[in-house]
């Protein structure tokens, strides 16, 4: 068997007395699109934060291509090839759309600067449907357009692993279909993706496999159809309501 691109073992994060991620283990194979699902507050975003190095884990290891990244800073992890979007969008408000996207590649794994960086940024803006608005300041864009810029910025990093945290949240049905198509095309080009998502239609149509979390613990893992019909998993979701 080949080494998985991402291997997480007994990952744990405590905030004071709260255990947000409780000894979670899973792996992601190269080229896979993994869904990370679970009710609100189950620790999905925290897991993403630990992978991207936004905060240190309390215990456990995270390996990228077999190399431990648990001790690395977010900047070093970015150079190793992890890029992400944020659940609550984080844009560079005083910079234009094109500059926001260029920012994704300047110091990250892509290490791209100058005309080459600009060309690539324009391609990516076109890909998310924003070629007309490339000079607009981000603070003047709609929330949805800001999310698109965030995706383009993450792609500009040339990541080996892309983390999407509820990137589909807040879209209307037409936008949703287009966004699903976009993620599929990125995946089809070979990108390894972990997506945290609540939109079940998107999970069903995109993800080969899912990991389910509830109250910080992994309660299910497997092929998407199997996981979603698992009574355990259903109970976790229903218990929320």
């Amino acid at each position, binding site marked *: 068997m080949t080494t998985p691109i991402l291997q997480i073992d007994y990952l744990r994060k405590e905030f004071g007395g709260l255990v947000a991620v409780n000894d979670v283990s899973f792996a992601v194979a190269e080229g896979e699109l993994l869904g990370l699902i679970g009710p609100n507050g189950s620790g999905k975003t925290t897991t993403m934060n630990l992978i991207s190095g936004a905060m240190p884990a309390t215990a456990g290891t995270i390996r990228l291509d077999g190399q431990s990244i648990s001790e690395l800073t977010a900047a070093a992890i970015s150079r190793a090839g992890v890029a992400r979007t944020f659940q609550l969008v984080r844009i560079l408000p005083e*910079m234009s759309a094109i500059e926001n996207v260029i920012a994704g590649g300047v110091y990250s794994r892509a290490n791209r600067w100058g005309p080459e960086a600009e060309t690539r940024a324009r391609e990516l803006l076109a890909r998310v449907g924003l070629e007309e608005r490339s000079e607009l300041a981000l603070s003047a864009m709609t929330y949805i357009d800001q999310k698109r810029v965030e995706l383009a910025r993450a792609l500009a990093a040339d990541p080996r692993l892309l983390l999407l945290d509820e990137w589909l949240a807040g879209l209307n049905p037409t936008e949703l279909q287009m966004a699903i198509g976009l993620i599929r095309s990125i995946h089809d080009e070979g990108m390894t993706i972990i997506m945290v998502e609540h939109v079940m239609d998107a999970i069903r149509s995109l993800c080969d496999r899912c990991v389910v979390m509830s109250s910080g613990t992994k309660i299910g893992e497997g092929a998407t159809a199997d996981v979603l019909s698992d009574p355990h998993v259903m109970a976790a979701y229903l218990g929320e309501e």
Partner: protein
Amino acid sequence: MSRFEINLMLLAGIAITCCAALPFMTEGFYLTLAVNIALYIALCTAWTLFSGPTHLVSLATAAFFGIGIYATAIGIEYLPFPLAILCGGLAGALFAAAVGAMTLRLSGVYFVIFTLGLAELARQIVTYLQTKIFGSIGLFVLTDHTEGDLFYYLLALIVAIFVTGWLIGRSRLGFAMRVIGNDELVAKHFGIEVARSKIILFVISGGFIAMAGAIMAPRYAYVEPASAFNATMSFMVVIMALLGGTRRLWGPLVGVVPFTIVTDFISANFPEHINIMIGLAFLLIVYLLKDGVSGLIDKAMRTRRGTRLQGAKS
């Protein structure tokens, strides 16, 4: 480069030429005033190189400046003046690197407080070394450089600072600093080494400030720690730079000229009121002019451009 920037550069060229002619035309009071203005333009622009993009208020100006003065005071015996100035810059840069490595991981308020203590720290160290090594408190700086010479050196330094700032603005580092200023977490998540970038800017800024000190040393004639490390200077620089605005390289210019003239007038006529004035100016600027005068100019231009764009669309 935008058309606005080109116009600005033209304007700067004309201004520099006019300034260069100044020492031929004036002497005494006006020349001293011109040197003061040039000095504060150099200091405030160098200060803005670091504090503008990082939004970190540094009160270390007096420390760097004093180090520069001492570099000339000690070096002038062995070196030609321009080399002594460069040594001053190097000493300031090294000091900034050491201080930056220790403090730039601190958050904003701690950094401000630390830099405030820095001038005092440098003063104590210099006093100690001087009494140990030279057995006296003061040092004579005997040169035959006139006020007019100092003015030319300052003018050259200002040009160097502006060119450096302009180059940084076009570089990867400058871009990284803008990203950091917009959202530090995003910067970190896209590979930018935030602390290291800040240290590099602090080193460049500190080096230039020390060079300004080295240039001004001949004016002091007799240097002692208390006069070389003068904390008021740190505050003056912050006030003038904020008044002008720190979002643009040329921002401080707008603040320095009127403020220096007014300060000069007040300290000549009402010397006991100068500190009150500085305090009041500080409060007014912080409360009323968040982005300084240049921020207002920028805003006015944006609004004009905005209406033009809308007009073109409809």
